[in-house]
């Protein structure tokens, strides 16, 4: 239950992030699992297709880092570190704020 709720939240965040910039596809998602998290990488990978199904991250690659630092203040948490987005029609030189 706890895990599902967490992953549902990550899904929400992915959708939010991808719509923030422009119509974008997410190519890569990097997640960080705290050392005291209830979640393991295996569980996460098992559930991942459901999490991203129907979102712009549906075909994204998943990178997972599992922390071993139990003293990290986020040690109980699951963190969405960063995403790579592909944006059609925009060159790298023009990634500044849109007008």
């Amino acid at each position: 239950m706890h895990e599902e709720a967490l992953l549902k939240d990550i899904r929400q965040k992915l959708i939010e992030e991808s719509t923030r910039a422009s119509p974008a596809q997410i190519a890569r998602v990097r997640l960080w699992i705290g050392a005291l998290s209830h979640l393991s990488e295996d569980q996460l990978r098992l559930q991942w297709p459901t999490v991203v199904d129907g979102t712009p991250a549906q075909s994204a690659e998943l990178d997972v880092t599992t922390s071993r630092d139990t003293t990290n203040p986020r040690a109980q948490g699951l963190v969405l570190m960063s995403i790579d987005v592909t944006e059609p029609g925009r060159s790298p030189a023009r990634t500044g704020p849109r007008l």
Partner: protein
Amino acid sequence: MTAEVSSDGRTPLVIGVGNEFRGDDAAGLLVSREIRRSVKGGVQVVETPGGVSELLELWDGRDRVYLVDAFQSGGAPGTWKRLLVGREPLPTTTSGTSTHGATVASAIALGQVLDRMPKLLVIYGIEAGHFEPGRDTSEEVLMGVREVARALGQELELPNRKTEREGG
């Protein structure tokens, strides 16, 4: 620091609501500390983690109460609102994580039913991003804290000046 509260109902009271160990939840406390530092005299400042009956105790019989709290309504973290209770609808807290967000609303509802409201209750709500234990308050929210402290500080000074003018 509720023990400091005197029974004089005329002194304006600033209530900072929050939990300093839960990220942006500290916003209300940080504003109240800023007020304590910057506004000299004539104001009482208390901090509380919330609680329906605690809030009723604090504000009952008061003329003017200013409550500062973090809330989540889906807006950008650090943005803030000023609300005059009784005239404007309260922001609905969408997150269950903000236990006292709902507490403030319940305290107002109960205070209205039991006739235990201050004459004036103003709420400054700062939009929070996260309430995660052990995380620092975010930069955006700290910015909001400074803005609210300034706005509230000015609001607290105004009636004093007015009284001075009227008196002199």
